C-alpha cells in the first residue's frame, strides 16, 4: 500500500498544527462558531447529539495492521473503546473531546493517517472497490488513481469552498462494488474497445440524499494522463455554476439535471480544452511512483483450490458455510479475499471494539500481508488470504464474535448511526437493523433467502444508502414519532437503480413484519436460483405492494 514520503509527512503534520491553531483561535474568539464549523468539519470534526465526533479518513478503504492498531489505541485512550466503520470506508469515533482532537491527530499522523476532508463542502475522502488489486474481474487496480486524487484534492486552493460536498469513487473492475453511479464523480477504468488502452469512463451527477440520481457518463474514455486536468475542469464548472441558493439543490447532480448532461459535458469539455494540461497533470513518472506502492505481494505458488480447505469444510458445516459466504474469488491461485462481517447479531452495524480491531490486525499480520480493507457495506476485508489458512482464521475470529457467516445476506445490513448519535438524524437506524437481524437470525432460513441487501438511513441525507438497497428503509419523524418508509428494487452495482416507495411509513415495531412479508412474496414467487432483486425486477412492485399494504398499520 501507499507510504508517505517526506512531503506527505510534512503536509499532514502541518495540517495538524493548523487545526491546533484553529482550535486556539476558536477559544479566544478570533473565529466565531459559524467560521470554525466548516474548518473543523474539513478535519472530520462534527458536533453530534451527545458529543463531538471525529471521522478519520481511510483513503479508498485501505489500512495497514499498524494503522488499525493505532485506531484501537485512540479508541481506548480518547474514546469509549470502540469505533464505527462508515459507508464511505472511514472510521468514526463518537465521543472525543475537542480539547483532545489535536493530540488524536498527532497519533494519526504517526501512522500516516488524518481526518482531512472527511466532511465539509469540499472533495471528500476518495472511495474505491474494496477488492482492489485482488478481484478476478479487475482490469486495473483503482488505488493508484484514488491515491493521486487524494493528494490532488487535499487542501485544494480552489475547491475547498464548493456549493456542497463532493464525492468521488473509483473502480477498476467489471462489477461495480464502489457504487460509482451514486457519486458526484464515478470513475471506471476500462479498456478502449479499439485500441485496448486503459482509460477512464467518467460519470458525473450521481448521488443519494433528498433527490437521488444515477450518474451520467460525460466521457467514455479519457486518457489516463489527463485525469487531473479533466477533474479540474469539472470542479471549476461546478464551483462557479452549482446552485448556492438552496442547500438541497447544491449538489452537482442538480446542476447536471437542470442544464442537462449534454450541456454540462459541453461546458466541461470547453474548460478542459482551454486548460494547459501539462501544467496541471501529474507527470507519468509520478503516476508510476504511486502505482509502484500497490504492486501485489509475493504470492506463493499454490494450486487453484486448497485440499486442506476442502477437508476442513467437509468436517465442519458451520465453517463451510462461513467460508463459502464470506470469501470472494481472487486473482492469485489458492488465495481468497475474506470479508469479516461487522454485523454480528445484536451489535450496531459497522461497530468494532478496540480489542476486535487488534485481533483483526494480528490476523492480518499473520495471514494477509498486514493489510486490511474497509468496505462501503461496513465490513472488513483481508485481501490476501491463503485458502488453507481460512480455518485457523475462522477459529480466531469466532472467539471474538467476528465469525458471522452473513456477508451479502439479509442480516448484513448497512445502517447509519441514526438518531442514537447523529445530530442530523430524524429517526433511529441501529435498533431497526437489530430488530431485523433478530427476526432473521436463523442461519438456515437466511441461507435459503440468499443475497439480499437491506440499507437503512436515519434521515433523508441517505448515509445508509437506502435508495440503492434491495430493500431500503428511511427513518423520518411523523407527528412526534419515528416512522419508517420502505423502498424496494434499489441496486448499488453496475445495474444501479433507485428503489421505489412501497407505501406509507410504519412505526418501528412493524418494520420486521413488513420485511417478513416482502421476503415471503419473494420466496413464493421466485423461480429456481433466482435472487431477490431478480425476482423484484421480473414480477415488478405490485405483488410486494399489496402484501405490504395488507400488513401496514401506517403511522396515522
Amino acid at each position, binding site marked *: 500500500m501507499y507510504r508517505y514520503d517526506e512531503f506527505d509527512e510534512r503536509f499532514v503534520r502541518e495540517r495538524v498544527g493548523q487545526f491546533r491553531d484553529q482550535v486556539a483561535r476558536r*477559544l479566544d*474568539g478570533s473565529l466565531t462558531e459559524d467560521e470554525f464549523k466548516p474548518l473543523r468539519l474539513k478535519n472530520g470534526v462534527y458536533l453530534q447529539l*451527545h*458529543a463531538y465526533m471525529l471521522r478519520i479518513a481511510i483513503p479508498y478503504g485501505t489500512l495497514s495492521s499498524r494503522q488499525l492498531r493505532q485506531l484501537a489505541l485512540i479508541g481506548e485512550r480518547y474514546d469509549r473503546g470502540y469505533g464505527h466503520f462508515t459507508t464511505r470506508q472511514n472510521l468514526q469515533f463518537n465521543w472525543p473531546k*475537542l480539547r483532545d482532537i489535536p493530540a488524536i491527530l498527532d497519533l494519526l499522523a504517526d501512522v500516516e493517517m488524518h481526518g482531512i476532508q472527511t466532511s465539509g463542502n469540499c472533495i471528500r475522502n476518495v472511495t474505491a472497490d474494496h477488492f482492489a488489486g485482488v478481484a478476478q474481474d479487475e482490469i486495473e487496480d483503482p488505488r493508484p488513481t484514488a491515491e493521486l486524487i487524494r493528494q490532488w484534492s487535499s487542501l485544494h486552493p480552489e475547491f475547498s469552498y464548493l456549493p456542497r460536498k463532493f464525492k468521488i469513487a473509483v473502480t477498476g473492475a467489471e462489477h461495480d462494488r464502489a457504487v460509482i453511479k451514486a457519486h458526484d464523480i464515478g470513475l471506471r477504468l476500462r479498456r478502449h474497445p479499439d485500441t485496448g488502452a486503459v482509460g477512464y469512463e467518467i460519470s458525473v451527477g450521481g448521488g443519494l440524499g433528498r433527490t437521488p440520481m444515477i450518474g451520467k457518463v460525460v466521457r467514455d474514455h479519457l486518457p489516463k494522463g489527463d485525469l487531473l486536468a479533466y477533474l479540474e475542469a469539472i470542479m471549476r464548472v461546478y464551483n462557479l455554476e452549482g446552485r448556492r441558493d438552496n442547500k438541497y439543490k447544491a449538489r452537482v447532480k442538480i446542476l447536471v439535471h437542470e442544464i442537462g448532461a449534454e450541456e454540462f459535458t459541453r461546458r466541461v469539455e470547453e474548460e478542459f480544452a482551454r486548460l494547459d494540461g501539462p501544467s496541471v497533470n501529474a507527470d507519468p513518472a509520478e503516476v508510476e511512483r504511486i502505482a509502484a506502492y500497490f504492486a501485489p505481494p509475493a504470492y506463493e505458488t499454490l494450486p487453484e483450490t486448497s485440499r486442506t480447505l476442502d477437508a476442513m469444510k467437509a468436517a465442519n458445516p458451520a465453517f463451510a458455510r462461513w467460508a463459502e459466504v464470506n470469501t470472494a474469488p481472487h486473482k492469485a491461485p489458492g488465495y481468497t479475499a475474506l470479508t469479516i462481517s461487522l454485523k454480528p447479531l445484536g451489535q450496531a452495524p459497522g461497530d468494532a471494539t478496540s480489542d476486535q480491531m487488534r485481533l483483526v490486525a494480528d490476523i492480518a499480520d499473520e495471514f494477509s500481508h498486514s493489510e486490511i480493507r474497509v468496505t462501503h457495506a461496513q465490513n472488513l476485508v483481508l485481501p490476501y488470504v491463503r485458502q488453507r489458512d481460512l480455518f485457523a482464521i475462522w477459529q480466531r475470529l469466532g472467539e471474538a464474535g467476528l465469525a458471522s457467516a452473513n456477508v451479502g445476506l439479509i442480516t448484513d445490513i448497512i445502517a447509519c448511526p441514526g438518531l*442514537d448519535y447523529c445530530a442530523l438524524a430524524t429517526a*433511529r437506524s441501529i435498533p431497526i437493523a437489530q430488530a431485523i437481524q433478530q427476526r432473521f437470525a436463523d442461519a438456515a432460513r437466511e441461507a435459503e433467502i440468499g443475497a439480499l441487501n437491506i440499507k437503512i438511513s436515519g434521515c433523508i441525507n441517505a448515509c445508509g444508502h437506502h435508495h440503492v438497497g434491495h430493500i431500503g428503509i428511511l427513518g423520518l419523524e411523523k407527528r412526534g414519532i419515528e416512522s419508517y418508509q420502505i423502498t424496494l428494487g434499489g441496486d448499488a452495482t453496475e445495474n444501479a437503480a433507485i428503489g421505489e416507495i412501497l407505501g406509507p411509513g410504519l412505526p418501528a415495531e412493524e418494520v420486521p413484519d413488513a420485511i417478513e412479508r416482502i421476503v415471503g412474496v419473494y420466496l413464493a414467487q421466485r423461480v429456481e436460483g433466482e435472487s431477490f432483486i431478480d425476482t423484484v425486477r421480473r414480477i415488478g412492485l405490485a405483488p410486494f405492494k399489496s402484501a405490504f399494504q395488507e400488513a401496514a398499520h401506517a403511522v396515522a
Partner: protein
Amino acid sequence: MAAVPKRPPLPAILLANDLLDGDVVFASGGATDAIVWTRDPALALVATDDAAATVLESFAAAELAGNRVVDAYLVDVEIQSGAPVPRHFRERFKTLGPSNRPDLGKQAGDGIENGRRA
C-alpha cells in the same frame, strides 16, 4: 454568531454542548443562585413562564458569546417524577445517550456522579 433559536412552548429547559468537551450541559441554579451549567439533566432549571425563559435565553446568548458552549437552545419538557423530560424524542436522547448502548451516556451516569456542576 449563532443566535438562540425561537422559543418553544413552556415549560422549557436550556441545553447546550460544552465547547471544549462536547458534553450536553443544562442550565441549572435556583431563583436566587447564579445560573451555571450542569451535566445532569435532572438538575436542569425549568422555566415555566416567559420571564424565566427570557432569563435562560439571556444566559444562553452570553455563554455563546463567551465561547463556553455551542448549540444552545430551549427545549420544551414535561415534569415526570419531579424531573424535566423533553417532549420530543430527539431531545430525550440528548438527556439519555444512545438507545442501543445503555452502558454509555447520561443514562449510564456519564459525567454526572463525578461532576454535578460543570
